[in-house]
């Protein structure tokens, strides 16, 4: 498994593998050091996106599709429900998070975390690093993050979407024990990677008063030994924020 931190896309197949009880070789790529655009990694995944998984002589990319593959190909507890309509709901929520909600979270994250984290590097080095990025979309994203080019309008739209998404997650988790069905599934693996630090990153929108179902759900996933093992593979302060879930109650006053 070629991955960065157990966070967003990298953490999805990592946690899925751990849930299936499959051991894997970890190749940690430092996203903030642009390891994912270096020739050694481009030989594995020419698109330069993380994560990628080598299984036998094949390389798989796209984290959500990798998770479905992992679930199908390895024995171990199933991570997709049996019922066809539940399976549809798992896929619907993963796509909603991958394509609508997560990009808004990540725009905020890149603006406040990734951009500032790399901005102190040598300007010429940064310029060269951007030019090495294979996908034009990723080149645009890095340029915006590094030079702080996110506009107020698009940041406001991202904040609006994060608020809408939190309300939707809270409502869905009020109807069911898990996000997409009555059993733990890939949708929960996906959602935890997106939301594990919600009460810290969005304290005025997500806490035990406003979103009790989300907090119950996050704590239930964090309580799984597999989740602990997965997050222990992280190296940055960003993923250590998961420890917020050890608090049994996070009230609204936490926001101030």
């Amino acid at each position, binding site marked *: 498994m070629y991955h960065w931190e157990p966070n967003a896309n990298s953490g999805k197949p990592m946690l899925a593998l751990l849930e299936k009880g499959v051991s894997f070789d970890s190749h940690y790529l430092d996203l903030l050091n642009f390891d994912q655009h270096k020739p050694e990694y481009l030989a594995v995944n020419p698109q330069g996106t993380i994560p990628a998984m080598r299984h036998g002589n*094949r390389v*798989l*990319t*796209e984290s*959500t*599709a*990798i998770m*479905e*593959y992992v679930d*199908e*190909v390895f024995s171990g507890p199933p991570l997709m429900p049996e019922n*066809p*309509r539940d*399976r*549809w*709901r798992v*896929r*619907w929520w993963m*796509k*909603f998070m991958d*394509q*609508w909600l997560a*990009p*808004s979270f990540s*725009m905020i994250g890149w603006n406040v975390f990734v951009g500032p984290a790399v901005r102190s590097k040598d300007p010429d080095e940064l310029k060269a690093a951007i030019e090495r990025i294979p996908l034009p*979309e990723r080149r*645009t*994203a890095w340029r*915006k993050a590094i030079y702080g080019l996110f506009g107020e309008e*698009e940041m406001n*739209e*991202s904040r*609006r*979407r994060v608020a*809408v998404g939190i309300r*939707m997650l809270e*409502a*869905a988790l009020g109807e069911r024990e898990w996000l997409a069905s009555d059993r733990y599934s890939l949708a929960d693996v996906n959602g935890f990677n997106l939301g594990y630090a919600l009460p810290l990153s969005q304290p005025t929108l997500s806490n035990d008063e406003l979103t009790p179902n989300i907090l119950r759900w996050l704590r239930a996933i964090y309580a799984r030994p597999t989740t602990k093992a997965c997050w222990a593979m992280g190296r940055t302060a960003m993923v250590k924020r998961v420890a917020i879930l050890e608090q049994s109650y996070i009230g609204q006053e936490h926001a101030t």
Partner: protein
Amino acid sequence: MTVYHGEPNGPSFTVLAALFETGIDAAVVHIDLAKGGRHSLACAQQPEVAMSVEGEGPVVVVDGEGMTDSVFIACYFDDLGKSNSLRPSDPFARWEMMTWCRQLIERTAPAAAYLGISAHAPSGDAAMLARIGSVDLRARWQDAVAGAHAEDRLADSRTKIAQAVDKMEARLNGREWLMGEFSIADLESYAWLAGMVELVPSAFAQRPRTADWMQRVRLRPAVAKALAQARQPAPAACWAPGPEINRWG
């Protein structure tokens, strides 16, 4: 089960063809997606209907629950059918199929829908627009109804269609169907590209494998039956706002 669909183009094409390929029993009801007909359905405000990433597409209703997103509806039909006739049996080939469809929905479908609505504008009155549950989908509708299209987005969309056809042409080298066996990837690719032959003809020039493949798709009885559900003379020219163009640029 009831399948509410629009003209057999884009996501409605995928869902109708997948329904007939699998032989699942369902009531089939035509709604005018290009006039916002989906937003009058009883399930319109359910989150999985209102917030579908696909934009305007068909809705399958089972026990009052509205289901959207054509590729996943096709997977649902395939699961119900038990014969798994729409997905490869090998897990790696399934991964390839899901990845193919994902990239299509992220890159090709937004471009096709943008070009489609700029050439064939949908119509919606204020009452319909007010019913749309998703704020960003409503904004795309307002632009579409007003005929507001950005020239740089149109140009970028044409480029993305040309790239998609290049990818098709390469993939079809030595293959009858995109994944080897016929699959949802063939339906979803046809769904978004069929209407582009008219709008971006240069993308299809000297692409014989893609042209032959389109003909093979049309010759399938289930596809012919899906296309026969059309109410308009040219269903591939019927468009409504689709998935949004990637906000990251």
